[in-house]
């Protein structure tokens, strides 16, 4: 067989080799690089916007925190459990409505995993490291069970008060019951005793510990120069501040075990 006759299969083999082992990997690399380039371009735009707006956003936050609405953000969703404030609020409404609090218990729930991406995530097959935008953190929570007693009107008013405790929470259950016997008088009318009722409440209260947002600059938030606080203002405007009863008149005693 002459070389001329062999040339066709040889060239076909060479062409296939070039196609599969040189062109194809290069095309795949280009596709991957283009995806990386898009991601890097987006990151660069985010970084430049953050550099431009970070200081003004920080100043905007500081200015808002000087207002009542700004402070209320941390009352609604504090960075720690802040159970003292809940007891204080319950005590305030108990005092206002005439119910007596028989007991309060708090049970911490298992903390959700932190949402922060501490290290940039690398995409598989990519030549560069891509940065993920941090997702909103899941607030931590604890369950509060409270037992109170009072008249129906007292408990009703108390419930109304604690409906807006300036704290992110969700009421999981509540019950009102009476233990007194119901009697029937000689005329056949139903009678109840004075009507002291016991109320039980179970609610989940939320808090959001401060976290590190290594890739926070990727958030669209940094594209603007100031926070949009209008929705918060609307929420706060619905109710007034709850005065704190937690500040004692004097602090310190020589013998903490004696009265």
């Amino acid at each position, binding site marked *: 067989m002459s070389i001329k006759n062999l040339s066709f299969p040889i060239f076909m083999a060479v*062409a296939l080799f*070039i196609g599969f082992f040189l062109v194809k990997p290069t095309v795949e690399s280009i596709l991957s690089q283009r995806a990386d380039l898009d991601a890097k371009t987006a990151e660069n735009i985010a970084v430049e916007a953050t550099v431009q707006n970070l200081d003004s956003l*920080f100043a905007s936050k500081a200015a808002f925190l000087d207002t009542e609405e700004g402070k209320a953000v941390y009352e609604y969703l504090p960075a720690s459990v802040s159970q003292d404030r809940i007891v204080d609020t319950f005590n305030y409404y108990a005092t206002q409505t005439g119910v007596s609090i028989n007991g309060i218990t708090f049970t911490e729930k298992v903390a959700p995993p932190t949402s922060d991406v501490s290290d940039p995530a690398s995409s598989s097959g990519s030549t560069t490291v891509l940065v993920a935008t941090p997702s*909103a953190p899941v607030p931590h929570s604890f369950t509060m069970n409270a037992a109170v007693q009072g008249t129906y009107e007292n408990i009703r008013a108390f419930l*109304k008060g604690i409906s807006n405790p300036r704290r992110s929470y969700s*009421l999981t259950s509540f019950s009102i019951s009476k233990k007194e016997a119901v009697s029937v008088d000689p005329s056949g009318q139903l009678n109840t005793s004075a009507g002291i009722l016991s109320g039980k409440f179970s609610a989940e209260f939320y808090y959001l510990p401060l976290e590190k*947002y290594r890739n926070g600059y990727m958030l669209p938030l940094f594209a603007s120069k100031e926070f949009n606080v209008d929705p918060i203002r609307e929420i706060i405007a619905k109710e007034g501040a709850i005065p704190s009863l937690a500040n004692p008149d004097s602090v310190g005693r020589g013998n903490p075990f004696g009265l």
Partner: protein
Amino acid sequence: MNLAQPSQQQKSVMGRKIGRGFIFLIAVVTILLAIWGGLSYYDSRLSGEIGDLSARIVGNRQGMSQDKIDAVTDFQFRMDAVIAGQKVVVDPERLLNLVEGNILPGVILSEYSFDAASRKIELKGEADSLRSVVQQLTVLKKMPEVGNLSVPSIERNDKGLIGFTFTITL
């Protein structure tokens, strides 16, 4: 008769065909190599652009305060969570109003309980007659907020009253 003449002509035609085929194959391989070269050049240019962008990002990030980023991000997420939390608030006063306006004179409640997860209200109480219990059920059933109303138990107690338990699913 010269038998060699056509054979030589055939060989000449075949040689031309092979020559053209050979050139075509070389052209195909050359084009493939050229495509690969062009793609490789584009690939390296992309790589260079990514490198430039990465360097610019690193430079810009060094100028940013991570503490400020944390503070600003935290504040935004905090506000978002507060706003989202407002949408799931259960209003116990509204729930009590539902029942208050629909209890009949001959009926006295001994327990009211609400469970948010199942959206169920359980009412326990006593009535002076079975008729009052039925009337009470009818009134409760007409409430627009009531999705389902079940009666787990009705029984006469030792005081001669009709004890009942209603479960309202909102």
